[in-house]
């Protein structure tokens, strides 16, 4: 009576059959199996929902490339070998030092032997490598590449073998004809071998690769040329011609690096951030600006210092070519993890960036 606060007594429902039934259902539900986990919680605790903005819980749409270290190593070896075969032909055509021609042939032959070994080692079933030669498919860069590699390896080995034989016999013979023929064929197939790898990864569903379909073959071609030139320099050849090729290659790599940095395409994110981004930059620096500077410095000054500068430039270029191949494969893996590009999500490149 004295309490002014309005209050009401809750209805007594203990005898209401409908309420009793509800309590019964509740008890039944409680005794049944409980849901063991909060339903929407990803293992990393990120709680990305399934929505038009994030795709299916931010999970990857594409599959990661299954390739391991053999493939980037093969890209490097094949690229250098192919360019070396071209070099041997061009050098011979222009009447250069025979020792240079011989060494270029050896590099081509060695690369031509190592490459198939690497490629076979990466196959899920290496014993079935010959199935690659069951068919020839123009529309499959992998098929074109396999046939090119077989042709290159045999002709590059032939060129090296016949030139060795020719050196021993020292006389005009059919061997010279065979030598020239295999030399010519290895240069032609070498040109395909050192550039098709760009087509191989460029024409795939992986965004960072297919958005660079025009860039990759030129990038890899120049990288192979730089590596072949540098390997010859490390063998002790230091003609001005090699330095000129080295400078052209380094200028090309610098321009390619700059174009990657300047393009705003969100699909290029793996080239600019994360581990793959730093590898791309390291590879670019080692193949572009650094050797370019060293080679330009080597144009003046005294002979001895120039030789040293060019050796450093050569080591840098070879390392750069190798790092670049690894970086692109790594970038492909990072790109496959991000569903934003293939799903055309508004926040392209945002999801899962921490995992890249």
């Amino acid at each position, binding site marked *: 009576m004295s309490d002014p606060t309005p209050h009401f007594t809750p209805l007594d429902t203990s005898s209401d059959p409908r309420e009793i039934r509800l309590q019964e259902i509740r008890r039944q539900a409680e005794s049944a199996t409980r849901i063991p986990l909060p339903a929407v919680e990803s293992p990393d605790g990120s709680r990305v929902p399934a929505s038009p903005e994030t795709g299916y819980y931010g999970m990857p749409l594409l599959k990661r490339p299954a390739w391991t270290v053999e493939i980037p190593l093969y890209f490097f070896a094949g690229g250098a070998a192919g360019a070396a075969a071209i070099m041997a032909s061009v050098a011979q055509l*222009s009447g250069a030092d025979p020792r240079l021609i011989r060494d270029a042939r050896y590099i081509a032959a060695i690369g031509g032997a190592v490459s198939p070994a690497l490629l076979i080692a990466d196959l899920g079933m290496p014993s*079935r490598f010959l199935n690659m030669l*069951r068919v020839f498919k123009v529309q499959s860069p992998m098929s074109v590449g396999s046939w090119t590699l077989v042709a290159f390896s045999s002709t590059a080995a032939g060129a090296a073998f016949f030139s060795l034989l020719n050196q021993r016999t020292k006389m005009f013979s059919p061997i010279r004809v065979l030598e020239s023929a295999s030399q010519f064929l290895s240069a032609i197939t070498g040109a*395909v071998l050192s550039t098709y790898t760009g*087509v191989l990864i460029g024409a795939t569903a992986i965004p960072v690769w297919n958005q660079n379909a025009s860039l990759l073959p030129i990038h890899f071609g120049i990288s192979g040329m730089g590596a072949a030139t540098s390997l010859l320099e490390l063998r002790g050849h230091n003609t001005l011609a090699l330095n000129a090729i080295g400078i052209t290659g380094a200028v090309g790599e610098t321009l390619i690096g700059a174009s990657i940095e300047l393009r705003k395409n969100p699909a290029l994110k793996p080239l600019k951030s994360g581990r793959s981004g730093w590898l791309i930059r390291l590879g670019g620096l080692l193949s572009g600006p650094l050797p370019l500077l060293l080679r330009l410095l080597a144009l003046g000054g005294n002979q001895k210092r120039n030789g040293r500068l060019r050796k450093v430039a050569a080591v840098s270029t070879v390392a750069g070519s190798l790092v670049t191949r690894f970086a692109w494969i790594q970038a492909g893996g990072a790109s496959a993890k991000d569903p934003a590009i293939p*799903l*055309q999500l508004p926040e392209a490149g945002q999801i899962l960036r921490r995992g890249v």
Partner: protein
Amino acid sequence: MSVTAFLTDSTLCIGCKACEVACKEWNQIPGDGFEWTGRSYDNTGSLGHSTWRHVKFVENGAIPGFGGNSPAAFSWEFSSDVCKHCENAGCLEACPTGAIVRTEFGGVFIQSDVCNGCAYCVVSCPFGVVERNPEDGRAFKCTFCYDRQKVGLQPACATACPTQSIQFGKLDDLREKAQDRMTELKDQGFEDVHLYDPQDSSVGGIHAFFIVRGDPRTYNLPPQPDVPTIYQRKAWTSAAAAAGLVFGTMLLAFLTRKES
């Protein structure tokens, strides 16, 4: 032989995963374990070498104050994903051994006795379906139950589906059926239903299409899938230019720097 197709109608799916189980049993695919992904009641995550049917669980949490028929109410959508058996199939184009073929039923089929595990199909699929089995070494995906179709049976998943969410039939018939079902659903008030069948893309249509509620991107279905062969003209042109550049650079260097 007529071209066959799947119509997966997620509005009928109850998320029972009978299709996953039936597929595994019939095709004798290794198990994926009983791990939960933590993404609703999905425990396989995505299609892969050992998952040829994958039930997606799109769960939208409850928002207090919304219930009943409100679109913001707690909702649960299930959709059974499968290889799309593209008209222009990236994996088939990419395969260097000829292991991947088109069957007389229009499906895309990997001949396991030919595949050598080069894994090029893996990066050529715009839907992320094909995968290399790390233990076996070869690539695997849905066979469209080629063996069953050969003897006039429908695929295992469609047979096991208890709600006819997975329907199997002739491609043209099912496309028509899908349109009818869309009209029916819209008449019933389901305004947000979508038919996922990207016929305008370079993939040129698929042989497994889906009716889903909401944006198909929620189900990791890409709005504009592209068959990677479309990038080849660009890439080979660049390769030819690169070869020319390398030849030219070397020729110029050797001809002008002859003196040393």
